[in-house]
């Protein structure tokens, strides 16, 4: 059968339109997008732009967190998200910079689901940022279900990424149960990974603690704040009748490439890990918490690290991260034109190898050139 159909089907067929979404195959490992949509270089540009934007625009989040905590639907001007997906990226700049504030009257209103798409979602790490070692943190994510946790009015609620209700239980988080409820404004909003068998929420990020929003604080502070607060709150990390789920913060490591340095990425990756690992999440130190996908939070599977970052990953670590040959990445030949038919076979071999992650970056580029 004509492979161009497969090619089109796998490469460009999507509803969401995020090329680098981790639910799709990693571009490097599926070798698909390079032909039409470079994807490379573009990620870094978006990062720069977002960092600039962060500096220039601070929102008042107090009202925002209250709405999430109360779970009320509200209306909002068509914001960045729609613009991003509906209009080409260049346009986003002026639209969102000129912003919802100026053209208020002209913008369409839109209902916001209080729990849907409230989490910051990562992209695949495609372009390694130049300041990676200095300005980025790594977090090892355990296998589990990503969820939004809200403690408010004596009860704690968990919602899935798409806003579906998961659970309702007491917790020792401020506002999360009768004992820790002091004022109706004492709510907490957390970004967690729920590990059901051990009944643990691994806290990935913190959006609001005790009524104080930290959306516009940078990641470095949020991580520090999270650790401090969880440590201060007695019993929140333990199982108890009043706290049936334990809350445990996930550690952040610097992205140093020297395995000798204590607490560096290279060192972590050289040993085994106590939990089953889903993947590695990297945050820019000064990224704010942004709902929806952000290029300042990027994602890799453990076995991709050596190819993409050039940092060796120990077998022990890989064993904790069940090595899946990525069924999501079907090795596919690009469409073969009659002229390049002879090369077709070689490419096929290359790609099979690539899918198993054995190829180095430079070689990938080479294949790229031959096929375009």
């Amino acid at each position, binding site marked *: *059968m*004509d492979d161009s159909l497969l090619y089109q089907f*796998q490469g*460009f067929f*999507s509803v969401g339109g995020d090329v680098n*979404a981790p639910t799709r195959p990693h571009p490097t490992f599926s070798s698909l997008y390079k032909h039409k949509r470079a994807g490379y270089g573009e990620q870094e540009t978006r990062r720069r732009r977002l960092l600039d934007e962060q500096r220039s625009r601070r929102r008042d989040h107090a009202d925002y967190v209250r709405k999430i905590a109360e779970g009320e639907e509200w209306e909002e001007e068509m914001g960045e998200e729609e613009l991003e997906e*509906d209009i080409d990226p260049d346009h986003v700049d002026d639209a969102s910079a000129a912003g919802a504030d100026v053209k208020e009257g002209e913008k369409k209103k839109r209902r916001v689901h209080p729990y849907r798409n409230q989490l910051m979602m990562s992209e695949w790490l495609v372009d390694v940022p130049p300041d990676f070692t200095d300005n980025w943190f790594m977090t090892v994510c355990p296998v589990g279900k990503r969820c939004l946790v809200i403690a408010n009015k004596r009860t704690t609620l968990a919602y899935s990424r798409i806003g579906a209700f998961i659970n309702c239980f007491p917790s020792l988080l401020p506002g999360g149960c009768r004992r820790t409820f002091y004022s109706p404004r004492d709510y907490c909003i957390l970004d967690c990974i729920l590990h059901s068998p051990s009944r643990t929420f691994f806290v990935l990020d913190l959006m609001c603690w005790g009524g104080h929003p930290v959306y516009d604080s940078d990641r470095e502070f949020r991580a520090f704040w999270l650790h401090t607060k969880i440590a201060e709150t007695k019993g929140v990390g333990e199982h108890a009748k009043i706290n049936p789920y334990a809350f445990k913060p996930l550690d952040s490591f610097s992205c140093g490439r020297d395995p000798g340095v204590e607490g560096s990425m290279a060192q972590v990756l050289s040993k085994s890990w106590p939990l089953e690992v889903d993947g590695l999440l990297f945050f820019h130190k000064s990224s704010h918490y942004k709902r929806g996908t952000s290029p300042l939070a990027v994602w890799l599977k453990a076995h991709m690290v050596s190819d993409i970052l050039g940092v060796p990953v120990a077998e022990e670590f890989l064993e904790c991260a069940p090595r899946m040959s990525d069924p999501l990445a079907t090795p596919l030949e690009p469409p073969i034109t009659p002229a390049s038919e002879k090369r077709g076979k070689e490419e096929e071999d290359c790609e099979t190898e690539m899918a198993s992650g054995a190829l180095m970056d430079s070689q990938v580029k080479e294949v790229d050139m031959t096929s375009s």
Partner: protein
Amino acid sequence: VYIVSLQFLNVPAFRNVTLKCLTEVAGIQTSSTNTQYSEQFVVMFTLVMTQLKQMLPLATNIREAFKNGQDDEQNFIQNLALFLCTFLKEHAVLIEPKPELQNTLLEALHYLVLISEVDEKEIFKICLEYWNSLAADLYRENPFSSSHSPMLLSQQNFPPRRQLYLTVLSKVRLVMISRMAKPEEVLVIETDQGEVVREFMKDTDAINMYKSMRETLVYLTHLDYADTENIMTEKLYKQVDGTEWSWKNLNTLCWAIGSISGAMHEDDEKRFLVTVIKELLGLCELKRGKDNKAIVASNIMYIVGQYPRFLRAHWKFLKTVVNKLFEFMHETHDGVQDMACDTFIKIAQKCRRHFVQVQQLEVMPFIEEILNHIRAIVCDLQPHQVHTFYEAVGYMIQAQMDSVVQERLIEKYMSLPNDIWDSVIQRATVDLTVLQDLDTIKQLGHILKTNVKACVAVGHPFVLQLGRIYLDMVNVYKVLSENISSAVSVSGELVTKQPLIAGMRTVKKETLKLITCWVSKSQDPVMVREHFLPPLLDAILGDYRRNVPEAREPEVLSTVSTIVDKLEAQAVDDIPPIMDALFECTLEMVSKNLEDFPEHRTNFFRMLQSVTQHCFAALMKIPPAQFKLLMDSIVWAFKHTMRNVAEIGLNVLLLLLQKFSVDQVGTQFFQTYFIDLMQHMFSVVTDSSHTASLTMHATILAFMFSLVEEDKITAPLSTTAQASSNAVYIQQYVAELINTAYPHLQDAQVKMFVGGLFHLNNNIPAFKEHLRDFLVQIKEYSGGNSEDLFLEEREAQLKQAAKDKRQQQLAVPGIINPHDRPDEMQE
């Protein structure tokens, strides 16, 4: 005669009535040899057509006219459609061979095409019926000409009749394609337990519409494959270039494309499909906004799912599709996840074997990869979607024939739910109050549901998993049941509506469902009896008896019937304890009136049926007092007005009579119950609310009379012993019975009836006829309508017709939806 009525046709006030009249005339069937009438029909047709052309020029846009027309005019259109359809269906044969009339015929068909475009369901149905019969007729005349190599056939090679209809049919295709009905309806409902469940509606008006449209279109495709393809491609381009773009149009078109799966030659189908998918992918990329993209995406997936033959032939494509579906399972846009899961299960069922084989260029079977990633794939899905997903994967595992490999797959497959299950059980063994926590209960319900779905799909080999959790599951059941029972006795029946208690009931129900499901699929009755039955008897049945009535699950009864059905005679020894636990307490619940506990009711009598059928010997051992209760309950059952309960009751009775008639202890049984039963039988036969089961009544009575007549009952039935033989005694008894109930009947009538009962009891249809005649006699007096006495015959006739039709359809490629067709992937 009709020529007169023609004069009224052009008078607006009379035209509706006139047309109706003409339709009646047109509907008259005549034999083709009767030339006199044939001539008349032809004349009538030409006259009507000439008149019609004056009133309604051929160029009229009937669709618009209808939309803006008055009631009267709209009726006119409808009547016109009726007339044309009826006439053409019956008498087109007369017109076709006459070259001078062909033009008129085409004009008539042209009207019909125009009317088909009218936006009114009833009118469309009328036309559809005609097009359907026309297309089927033309196809049958010459079934295979188009499927050999359609591209080579030039139009001249078409048989003459097809030649005649060629242009019209092309227009009809266009109408069918642009009006295609919705293929399936999904209803989202919330159950008593507060869970969201999606149900596929099987038999609605819209779906029947879809079915007949699909049938028509498939015939039409067989008649001229290239034309269908052209129209569809043309329509598709109009979607892409935006001239006809709308959600509704796109859906309609894609349903049409999906509907002709299998009708084309395989190579043509492939070429066509590749073009269609490419165009749609392009469209999806082109459209902005998630709403638009999601609509295009679900249409692509719908089409893909409709063509399993194509998927099976192209592994790489199949794999790409499935991976894309997994990707969609993470999409947050409304409905995309549901669409992805529904398509996935559709594909899994039809292509299951391909997922367990190692495909070309692959290292391992794809199922392995799915299982490796199952956690990541389902992580964003909602519980009901996870269940669907598990069922789909279960079908794949079921297709693995090597039992060693299969066992390993099952283990891996269930490891995710098992992890959570284990951790709950572990905590519960330390502290039983864990099982009173709403959250835990919900988790258990969810896990058990996943197990049920998996078991449905995997079948007997699921024993591996069931065995793993069986004992714990039964224990959890027991604990929860006690919790519910005490809650009910403390705070009354309403407490079962509380989330926690409702959750517990869900767990119980799912437990029973799981056991029932597996037992019904198991192939090893000995294993069921030795390993699964004892804990069940102990925990679940004992629990049933101890519980308050409101906390008893009706599913317990159906589980028992399933087990008895499976074990058959092997269950004889287990029946006494089962009956002990279930019989009296259930009877108490259902014997108070005819309405309470409807589910218990049906399940209870069904259980009795299974027991009688398979373990008759066990019934003999029941003490007389209890046996009396049993008989009473059967009589009680067939007196129900709930039709299914009554039917089960009758079945049980017939079974019992048959079994006793060949058993030595029968005599005693008949002595005690025969007269009684006969009396009850007559009372239901003559009760008008039971007419639906007349056949069954007749069968039973005939059997009873034959028993008497052939002297199978050796002991005297009469208590006073006056009569010389049982036959004479019964004759007298019945006559007396009828005389007292219907004093208006004459002795001769009664005598004839009773005599008939004896003579005809070897021939059930005749016996039934006789019984019915008698009932009509009674009715005549009371003035009732005897129409419904014939109800059953009509139903049977319809059923037979449907069966014939399906047989016929199976022979036409593509006419059965690929998902309704039994094939090698589904055994």
